[in-house]
């Protein structure tokens, strides 16, 4: 009898979009709260955002079970780090850890598309963007997930990022004020919800600055 092929897939796409924008002294991380499978909505109120450290927040979309496992793994590693070093992990340090964790499962990947946002050791905003197997880059802003193809070009237009090939190296962090960046995020998700069926229901926005972490919500289209 020939070898049976599996008739189930270990992966599923639970949809959704994530965005992060870095400013001079703040970072905005946002994601919608819809969780879907195929053409069904499973729930309208699921958070894709996870606080990994005091000044480091991750938003992930993709296969929810893998995202959850990844969040748990990183939270556990952060706890160990705190026990060993008696301090919080910095955002760049967490960025490297996330990359290594993803590549560790290079041959059975975490189906998770991540953006990491926070403040670096000097208090400046930083955003790191990833693919599913850990390839990452520090950028001024990024989007991942089902709506990223709609969102990213718009962010490119509005935030006018300088080419990373220019010398001397130019700062990718946006000169926009915090309130303007939050407004841009709201606009971007309202637009993405119009055309991406997997994005919608509610928007969760997390803002990190010197005062700490703040959370905000906005309703999106439910269709």
């Amino acid at each position, binding site marked *: 009898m020939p070898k*049976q092929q599996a008739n*189930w897939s*270990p992966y599923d796409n*639970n949809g959704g979009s994530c965005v992060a924008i870095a400013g001079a002294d703040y970072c905005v991380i946002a994601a919608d709260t819809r969780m879907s*499978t195929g053409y069904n909505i*499973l729930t309208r109120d699921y958070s894709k955002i996870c606080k990994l450290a005091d000044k480091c927040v991750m938003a992930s979309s993709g296969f929810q*079970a893998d995202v*959850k496992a990844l969040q748990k793994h990183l939270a556990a590693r952060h706890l160990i780090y705190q026990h060993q070093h008696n301090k919080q992990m910095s955002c760049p340090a967490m960025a490297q850890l996330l990359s290594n964790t993803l590549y560790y499962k290079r041959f059975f990947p975490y189906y998770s598309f991540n953006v990491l946002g926070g403040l670096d050791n000097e208090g400046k905003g930083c955003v790191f963007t990833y693919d599913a197997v850990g390839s990452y880059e520090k950028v001024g802003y990024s989007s991942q997930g089902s709506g990223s193809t709609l969102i990213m070009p718009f962010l490119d237009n509005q935030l006018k990022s300088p080419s990373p090939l220019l010398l001397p190296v130019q700062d990718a962090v946006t000169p926009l004020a915090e309130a303007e960046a939050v407004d841009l995020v709201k606009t971007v998700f309202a637009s993405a919800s119009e055309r991406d069926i997997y994005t919608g229901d509610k928007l969760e926005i997390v803002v990190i600055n010197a005062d700490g972490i703040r959370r905000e919500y906005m309703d999106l289209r439910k269709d």
Partner: protein
Amino acid sequence: MNFMASKQPENSLLGPESDSQRTLYPYVTGTSVVALKYKDGILMAADMGGSYGSTLRYKNVERMKAIGKHSLLGASGEISDFQEILRYLDELILYDNMWDDGNSLGPKEVHNYLTRVMYNRRNKFNPLWNSLVLGGIKNGQKYLGTVSMIGVNFEDNHVATGFGNHLARPILRQEWHENLSFEDGVRLLEKCMRVLLYRDRSAINKLQIAKITEEGMTISQPYSLKTYWEFSAFENPTQGAVGSW
């Protein structure tokens, strides 16, 4: 000279983990489970059918069970895998009781445990072929969650598995509200189960409704729903055969 016939089947180049040990497809299955939060706790409904493909093989399967003092588990999918999960949970609750420290696992903890079990089995490519609904109440906090065979999990005010997602959730989205009375909750669940009975091929008209509150879990005696078949479209159903339902 042949000493011992090899116990390994032919395709065991993979070593001790032979493919014959992995789940390929389910055999005896249960269909939808529907559950909602109401004023005093959780209400959950499931029919009592165990299908063997298209045959209705078993008609007295209890697909909802109490777990510990605070939780209620309902399962759809492979019945034998559900029984295996009950064995895992028995052990979990036993060890929890053996601490004898006045603390007991609540629904959130049991749901988390189940999620980890389902996800880890999926990682080994040997899933427990179930969609589980875990509801309960502890210290006034109501909890209702679900986990699929590949580990996808979430909590909400109302959940359903399988066909229930397609047919029951829309009804619940329209009619569920906070602090439903027991009677209203049961009426709403029966409305969902009736639609499933009409439209899900594997549903049978013998169901139980389980309730879990701070006082504990009770499960109704099996009963059947009243159905109405006198719609004109059901008379002579093959008349408008082309394009009709």
